């Protein structure tokens, strides 16, 4: 058994989320324990592997899911895969969201596009023990209404289920005929946050999305009073071996596969080109 051997895994269900994002439910031959924020390497046999953060709850072991956007070689083959296809899994790798630090706090989640995938896993972890946290505000930005990932959950199900303690701010960059919600970049959901979060200095933020979105969301959070060490970012770099050896995900003094992918802004702010 080599640490580069993937666990044989069946795709048991494919859910189309948006025109270019699908969720794959996976059944590995050996079960795999992970925590929200950690990543796995998903192998397309004979083609290669890529790093993905599961989007499902770490507490529902039978329902391991990854939510993937079609962007390159591996993801295109995955998108063309049918239920029953065989893939491989290695991991989990890296550090999870520091839930201990989140206890008793007001939590702000900011997600953009496919960046909603790790946030869903985090959200399901937080709501598993919702009493541990003071309040959650979930901000979600998408390009158009068609591009909203986990649409039914964020627009309806979660909103109803958790209405006492969690509020949702959903925006799209461009509306369409049917869209009645907010239109604007995800940063606009951070306006008037003081209505829901009482103390920005103590509140913790989690940001995940395209680099440009993470950059502007972070700058805005700093501007309204969030502390560097309280902003958690998902630095999705080119993780390959997952074992701290291959060097691809080196970022400053860190290896993202070992020290991340979750970093605080404090940890990475002095590293050149972190948003690229």
């Amino acid at each position, binding site marked *: 058994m*080599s640490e580069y051997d993937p666990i044989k895994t069946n795709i048991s269900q494919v859910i189309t989320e948006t025109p270019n994002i699908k969720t794959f439910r996976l059944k590995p031959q050996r079960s795999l324990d992970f925590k929200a924020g950690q990543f796995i390497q998903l*192998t397309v046999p004979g083609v290669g592997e890529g790093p993905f953060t599961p989007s499902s709850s770490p507490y529902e072991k039978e329902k391991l899911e990854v939510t993937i956007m079609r962007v390159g070689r591996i993801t295109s083959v995955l998108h063309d895969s049918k239920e029953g296809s065989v893939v491989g899994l290695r991991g989990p790798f890296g550090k999870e969201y520091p839930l201990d630090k989140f206890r008793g706090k007001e939590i702000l989640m900011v997600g953009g596009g496919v960046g909603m995938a790790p946030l869903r896993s985090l959200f399901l972890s937080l709501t598993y023990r919702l009493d541990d946290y003071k309040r959650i505000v979930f901000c979600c930005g998408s390009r158009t209404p068609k591009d909203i990932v986990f649409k039914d959950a964020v627009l309806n199900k979660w909103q109803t289920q958790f209405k006492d303690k969690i509020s949702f701010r959903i925006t799209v960059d461009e509306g369409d005929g049917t869209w009645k919600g907010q239109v604007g970049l995800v940063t606009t959901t951070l306006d008037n946050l003081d209505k829901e979060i009482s103390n920005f200095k103590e509140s913790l933020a989690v940001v995940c999305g395209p680099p440009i979105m993470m950059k502007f969301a972070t700058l805005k959070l700093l501007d309204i009073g969030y502390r560097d060490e309280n902003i958690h970012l998902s630095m999705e770099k080119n993780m390959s071996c997952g074992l*701290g050896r291959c*060097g691809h995900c*080196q970022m400053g003094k860190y290896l993202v596969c070992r020290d991340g992918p979750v970093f605080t802004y404090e940890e990475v702010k002095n590293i*050149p080109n972190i948003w690229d």
Partner: protein
Amino acid sequence: MEAFFISTANFQHLLGNLVKKNLLYGPRKKGDFLFYEKIETASPKDLVLHTNRPVQPLKSFFFPPYQKVSQYFQVTSPVEKEIPKRVILGVKSCDLESLKTLDSVYAGTQFSSSPDPWYTRARDNSLLISSDCLEPDENCFCTLLGSHPYPEEGFDLNLSPVDGGFVIEVGSEKGKTIVSQDQNLFTSADEALLAQREKIRANSQSKVKELNQEVEVKSPYRDLIRESYPSPVWKNHSESCVDCGGCNEICPTCRCFLLQDGTEKDRFERVRLWDACLLTGFARVAGGANPRPKLADRFSNRLFCKFYFFPENVNLDACTGCGRCISVCIGKIDMRKVFRDLEKESSEASMEKIK
């Protein structure tokens, strides 16, 4: 450590014994260059023990350019072939130093939760007989990194030429075993021989120093690089870089690799191949984002890795001053001059402040 004398004739005897039980490699001359090549006889004509390092980096023996690391979804796992015992002869101090970096990545647990099985097996199966470097070339700069052209650790046995033979120093238990198996080939090394060795070593050391007079700096490289990211020095020096990654491939401490999957008959395979951070796509992600799209950024990143990333993580400079990156560079880039210019720039900046 214990040192013995072995005469030239007895040394041939020793090689004869080693070649019987092991695969023996050593620096052999091919044209103008030295390469680690297989040695089949006890008295190979073109074996060159005491000039500078061979062209290939020592890493090739332990972290080969191509390594099959997985055959997956098979009913039965592939049978691992026994790897034969190897003796590598004529390893230079700079290459021994490079193993500290590779060991930290592949044999240690600072980076990974467990050591790499292929690397550790190859290390365990190899005996290193190093030798002093007496003819440094124009690109050698071990002395600039606080090292010297003769090894003090990391070898199993080390050879230093003296009149009539070698002083052979024992550096490990494995080395000790070799000596005890052929005790009659060795005599004790007396003070006079050791003094002779020291004299020859000091001479070689001053040769390296002399070669580097023009590029010597006062501060350690790791101090000079720390705050240097915005410096124009990086762009200036990378202007002649042709993006070939040669410096990565030939560097004895560059340890990055690429995993590549393929199909072989009815099974899937995964291999790891040397990779180069100088190449455009090295850190690019599938979506297209690239933290180092500019050549100057990739160029500086390679040296930041050596003098910032490794010191921060394992307190090691991941550079041994072997000078291969200078020899190989089509663009004639010389990292010593990069650091010289960084120092010049920072001293000019502090002069400005005083004014």
